[in-house]
């Protein structure tokens, strides 16, 4: 049975005198792929920023998996399970692909300074566990051969795949993907599509902004379009 993972109620947002959203209502079901279309400047990225806590709504409520997002900052919302892939994938260029995945882990005792004094064994154990998980994810995303390569040296398509795999490592429940298919070759589009379908199968919810409507339509369960300050469901 499907369950709501994201429920947005009467969301409004303006910048100065410019109205962007007026009483937007939208519901996303868990384990679905959803695509958001709209013309340039219509506010697609801003809408994702509102869900992710990077912008605050003027009015309305955003309910995510039992949490009502209003004044929480982006880190708290990310810890609650909202993952974000930016248009320019936010990989860490000076670290290897494997390290990018390790740093994406939701919790790591090695990231707490006091654990180096009081609980050093748990750091080693967790690091070993995470390496195993990271290699499994890299295998799933066909990036295993790049594990020791610097993330900054990957192609854009590979960076996008890495960015999505980092969200998986981060245990995100809702993946907000900003143009995953843009500026990548057909092979990579296929790889990304396959990865997204696998994630849906694993119960993840995907919400993506996309201009390549044909590719998005092929894998999406629901389509949305921004029109006249509202978001309309197309199918």
């Amino acid at each position: 049975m499907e369950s709501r993972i994201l429920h947005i109620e009467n969301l409004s947002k303006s910048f100065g005198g410019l109205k962007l959203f007026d009483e937007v209502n939208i519901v996303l079901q868990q384990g679905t792929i959803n695509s958001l279309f709209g013309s340039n400047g219509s506010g697609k990225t801003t809408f994702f920023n509102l869900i992710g806590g990077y912008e605050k709504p003027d009015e309305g409520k955003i309910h995510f998996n039992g949490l009502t997002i209003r004044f929480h900052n982006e880190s708290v919302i990310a810890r609650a399970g909202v993952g974000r892939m930016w248009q320019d994938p936010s990989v860490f260029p000076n670290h290897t692909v494997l390290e990018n995945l390790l740093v994406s882990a939701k919790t790591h005792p090695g990231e707490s300074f006091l654990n180096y004094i009081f609980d050093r064994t748990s750091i080693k154990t967790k690091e070993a566990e995470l390496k195993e998980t990271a290699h499994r994810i890299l295998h799933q995303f066909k990036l295993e051969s790049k594990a020791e390569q610097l993330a900054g040296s990957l192609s854009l398509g590979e960076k996008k795949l890495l960015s999505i795999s980092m969200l998986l490592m981060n245990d995100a429940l809702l993946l907000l993907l900003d143009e995953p298919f843009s500026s990548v070759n057909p092979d990579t589009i296929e790889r990304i599509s396959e990865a997204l379908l696998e994630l849906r199968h694993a119960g993840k919810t995907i919400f993506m902004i996309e201009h390549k409507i044909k590719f998005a339509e092929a894998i999406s369960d629901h389509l949305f379009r921004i029109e006249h300050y509202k978001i309309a469901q197309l199918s």
Partner: protein
Amino acid sequence: MNWLHILFMCEIYVILALSANLVSGYTGLLSFANAAFYGLGAYMTTLMMKNFGLNYFLALLLAIVFNVLVSFIITYFSVRLKDLYFTLATIAFQVIAFTALYNWEKVTGGSYGISAIPAVRLFGFQLNGTGQYTILGGAFALVVISFFVFFQRTPFVRLLECIRDRELGAASLGKNIPYCKFICNSVAAVFIAIAGSLFAVYNSFIDPTSFTLSESILIVNMILIGGTGNLIGPIFGACFYVMLPEVTRLIPISSAKGASLQMIIYSVILILVVRFKPNGLFGKFKFQ
């Protein structure tokens, strides 16, 4: 030429440069408040030893606690500031700290400074002379270097480097960025307090002119020339800056001309490094 004195100064500046590297090299925050913390460490140790008759190590412990508390307050107000704004905030703090040290005559002695600082006593043995202080400084420098050697390849430093390279990316993974900055600034404040206390007991005299904005700029120059984000860069930068004046003294010219020559050499090297090695000679990270 007193090579032991030079070695002692190298030890102090290695500690200072490594501390500056922790804040600037691993989190990308360019701080110009290092000399302020250096001065607070020196004054706190001195006041505890002179006014309350405390042993050096107990006075140092209190200086560390004081520096960490001040660092907490500064970080609290600056943690959301980025790039140039953070740097400006640290300059403001540096100026405030210097002004306080210079004008609070009743406590700090103002421009006259504080003299006759008691010597370090260790197990009933009083340290005397440059050689013994060099051993003490070397021991502390070794502790600080060992700390960085241990931490260099840990998940904590990996996270710091990711925050430095892409703070928004780290935030969107749910990382607690303010916590990391608090820890970095606090650990740096601990080590800078050690350097300040060593400086005070070695010279047995301190005054505010040793803790000016110029001193902070010097420390930043050390990590700019040596490079940041690793160990070798700050260590090289610190030793280079301490030893260069001694090397120029070997040139048979008057001391006035020698001082000018030093400034010319510093400037030329800085320009060349910034132009051709923007990461510093051994650095991993380039300041934007």
